[in-house]
């Protein structure tokens, strides 16, 4: 009995250590995600919807994981500079323009991208502020 108790306590301790040692990266991503959600509600939700569902063929949904993945480096440019050409999402063509958000800082864009690319059925991990800065330099 005594041995059992000590054993359980030891295991518990081990579990706690492992849990608290969860990599700092995950915690940072969670922080970005939560902040990103606030920014999304403020700047994006009007048109793209609370579930990223879009609006008719006026506004594309944000649920096309393949698009998000294959255009990963362009996403920051889309937000900062807007979109003027038509784009194809989930096989549907969307015409018209997306407004630019020049007032957003790199870190805002990173947080927004973490939220969007890890919500609405997407799961694409972390965006750092540095990678946003690099992507923005390469905008066409």
């Amino acid at each position: 009995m005594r041995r059992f108790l000590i054993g359980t306590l030891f295991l518990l301790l081990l579990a706690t250590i492992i849990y608290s040692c969860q990599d700092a990266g995950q915690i940072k991503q969670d922080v970005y995600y939560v902040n990103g959600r606030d920014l999304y509600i403020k700047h994006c939700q009007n048109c793209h919807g609370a579930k990223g569902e879009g609006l008719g063929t006026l506004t594309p949904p944000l649920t096309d994981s393949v698009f998000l993945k294959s255009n990963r480096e362009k996403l920051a440019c889309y937000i900062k500079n807007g979109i003027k050409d038509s784009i194809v999402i989930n096989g549907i063509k969307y015409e018209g323009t997306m407004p630019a958000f020049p007032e957003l800082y790199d870190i805002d864009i990173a947080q927004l991208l973490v939220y969007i690319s890890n919500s609405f059925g997407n799961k694409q991990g972390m965006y750092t502020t540095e990678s946003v800065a690099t992507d923005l330099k390469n905008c066409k």
Partner: protein
Amino acid sequence: MKLQISIPLSLFAAAIVLITSCQGEKKLPILGPRTVETVKKPDGSSGVDTVYKTIPNFSFLNQDSVTITNDKFRDKIYIADFFFTSCTTICPTMHRNMKEIFEKYKDNPEVMYLSHTIDFKYDTPSVLKKYAQKLGVDNGQWQFVYGSKDSVYKIAEKDYLVAVIEDSTAKEGYIHQGWLVLIDKQKRIRGAYDGTDTKQVAQLMKDIPVLLSEDKK
């Protein structure tokens, strides 16, 4: 002892049930200013009557470049709002919510929608048509109309009681309110709901059948 408490308690409960069940059928209020006028009754005598605010005659170009008037909404109830197609602030939310109502009453020809553009510079009928198609509501039940600045802004403020202002300092050039205004078959205002607030839109959804059943009697 137990019995003594339970008797008044059950009486009280019965009273509540009776009171609530005696409530008449729900009716929507009639909004806007009203006046009392002396009217001639059919039998020749004169009496006083309350005159409610009604939407006056209008004439606008719709998304098919056809002139429409109040006749289009004869014997219909309709929801009116003011928007512009390039608006990215409250309009998409308003129309997302309105579309939900539209989908729900798609098969009911008695329910219609009337969206006025306040962007008289850009939102010509062809732009409105494209917008309606893209929103997925282009079946005629939802009318999108274009008019001169004066006519639209005047009907907004004086009649639908919605504030719209052209303001060059605003990011998109216009300031306007997001009310969805419910109009009955006698052209009276029966409700105004903030189209960006899900709770108020849910209330509008509940009020539509109330208004429809009122006309059945």
